[in-house]
């Protein structure tokens, strides 16, 4: 695990500004060109190019055998990927919504996570499961969840939660090259967001290296996915009020770059974790615990969490937004925490 935070988000000389979706699509295409063993399956990914358009054009380029439309069969999509990995291929599969990881839970948490272990290390399972995740507006309680903490709790799975186009591309390329199974949580609410992405075919973002999205001295905010942008917006509002917020995006939860977070807290002495997932036993709890274990005496205040509600998500888009942290809530919480 590297401890040097890699900061992106500033436009480099060779960067282009492209969308998060486009970045994912490029990563898939480049990795399939690079390695013939890489292939994809999922529902509506071929002829349609994916319900969110992420795989558009790929079946045209790589043919129907490498970009394969399946029936509605999540246990096959994931379990089949596990089996296909054992036969020497690198499957990158899509579940139409991250919520369906429960539909393929045995395949994800038992087959992908444990097959290598149970069989004495004889096999590797280089599988990527792409999981369109999070609140997007009226998709309902079974199509909107943020389930990354659940993925984090079962040993054997790596977990990526990209928040920018650059990280979406670089982390996906790293995921496809990783010999271990990766659950890749794409935030649906970010698909249309644009940002600078390096031009290179070798733009690979290593797992386990957090990104300092904004440097600051008074308070550390750890956020992922859609919450990174909200935390950054909150930081801009707080700056004129004399509260200088550092925003850290871990980028992967497994492995988790706790070193970067601890080092930041040792400077700012205050920590707040912001996540869209439900509050109870979310990854905020884990980060709070690890930080107090390692840096208790650096803390000037309790560690706070600003999180999704402990409720299912209502389908109504307005009610739904009220269930996840808003920029205003982050601002209010940060101001109160800074005042302790």
């Amino acid at each position, binding site marked *: 695990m590297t401890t040097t935070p890699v900061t992106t988000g500033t436009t480099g000389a060779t960067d282009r500004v492209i969308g998060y979706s486009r970045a994912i699509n490029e990563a898939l295409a480049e990795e399939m060109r690079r390695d013939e*063993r890489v*292939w994809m*399956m999922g529902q509506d990914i071929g002829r349609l190019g994916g319900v969110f358009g992420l795989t558009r054009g790929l079946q045209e380029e790589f043919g129907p*055998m*490498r970009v*394969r439309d*399946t*029936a509605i*069969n*999540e*246990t*096959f999509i*994931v*379990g*089949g*990927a*596990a*089996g*296909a*990995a*054992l*036969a*020497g*291929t690198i*499957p990158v599969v899509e579940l139409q919504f991250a919520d369906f990881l429960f539909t393929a839970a*045995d*395949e994800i948490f*038992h*087959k992908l996570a444990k*097959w*290598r*272990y*149970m*069989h*004495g*290390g*004889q*096999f*590797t399972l*280089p599988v990527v499961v792409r999981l369109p995740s999070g609140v997007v507006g009226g998709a309902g309680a079974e199509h909107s969840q943020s389930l990354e903490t659940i993925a984090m709790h079962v*040993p*054997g799975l790596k977990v990526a939660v990209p928040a920018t186009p650059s990280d979406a591309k670089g982390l996906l390329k790293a995921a496809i090259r990783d*010999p*271990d199974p990766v659950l890749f949580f794409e935030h649906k609410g970010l698909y249309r967001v644009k940002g600078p992405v390096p031009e290179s075919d070798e733009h690979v973002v290593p797992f386990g290296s957090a990104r300092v999205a904004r440097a600051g001295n008074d308070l550390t905010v750890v956020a992922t996915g859609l919450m990174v942008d909200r935390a950054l917006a909150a930081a801009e509002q707080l700056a004129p009020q004399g509260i200088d917020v550092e925003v850290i995006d871990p980028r992967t939860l497994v492995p988790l770059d706790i070193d970067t977070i601890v080092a930041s807290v040792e400077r700012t002495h205050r920590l707040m974790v912001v996540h869209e997932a439900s509050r109870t036993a979310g990854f905020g709890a884990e980060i709070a615990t690890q930080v107090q274990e390692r840096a208790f005496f650096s803390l000037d205040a309790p560690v706070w969490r600003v999180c999704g509600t402990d409720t299912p998500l209502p389908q109504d888009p307005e009610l739904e937004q009220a269930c996840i942290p808003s920029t205003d809530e982050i601002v209010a919480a940060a101001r109160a925490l800074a005042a302790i």
Partner: protein
Amino acid sequence: MTNDPGPDREQLEREVYRKVVTIRFAELRIRDHVEKEGFGGFWHPGIGQEGLQVGAVSAMQDDDYLYYAHRGLGYAFAKGMPLEPLFGDLLGRASGSTRGKGGGTVHFADASRHVLGQGGTLGSSFVMGAGTAAASQLLGDGRVTVVFFGDGASGRGTWHEAALQASVWKLPVVWICENNGWALSARFTEQSPTEHVADRAPAYGMPGVIVDGQDAMAVHDATAEAIDRARRGEGPTLIEAKTLRIRGHYEGDRQPYRDDPVLGDEIPNDPVHRLGESIPDDVRRGIDAEARTQVEQAFDAALAAPRADRSVIFEDVWA
């Protein structure tokens, strides 16, 4: 291993007999150990089902892929795995194929022999097997995947997902159901709307073949035909081998639920005897003696091997 026995039929039958009788001795040795020494896991005896397991696997080529089921060791031994690592897995020894993580029969593997392992959740290998076959189809490697499962596991939803996709894609996979009449305490006839598991095959557009599971060579032939079909690119076949669960679900299961005559020691239509009939007595006795010695030696070696060091707990979580 051969696909087309032809004039070598006699030799094939002897080889199948040798493997079946070896596994029979292994079954008896393990039972003895479980009864006398106790056992820190569950041993699901496969006695009486060895014939169908060995018969089917003998129709596979060396680089075909195998997903076995939990009832015994016949599948893996027939695929070429030596006995000692299998016993080692059973006894939780460092010499096991899982290097000491085993215990019971649920997991063993041999990547070099394409024995791909087993999931502890029944029905996992339906979808995994179809996926392995999809990889073979993509790579054009000419390999066929064979998946074993029980009549009870046939109830899993993964069967539907895997069978449907495998048939639509014409994947090179062969499913072999060992219908022994029982799934733990559940009687097959009370949990199936159809008389046979194979009756479900037509709904998936694949052949369903019923074969006498006590007749190892008949199972061999049915499997060889299904494998040929799969290798020709014509898709999957469901084979149902009719057999009997001679013992309890696990060794030590007193089977209070069982109201058919509990078979215990007697094996109707014993595959060992059936195969042995055509082999001259002196030849057969020679094979038996060798098999018995092989089992004794391998079991003793496994018993003598050390248990795994605790450090293995932290190994092989990640590649």
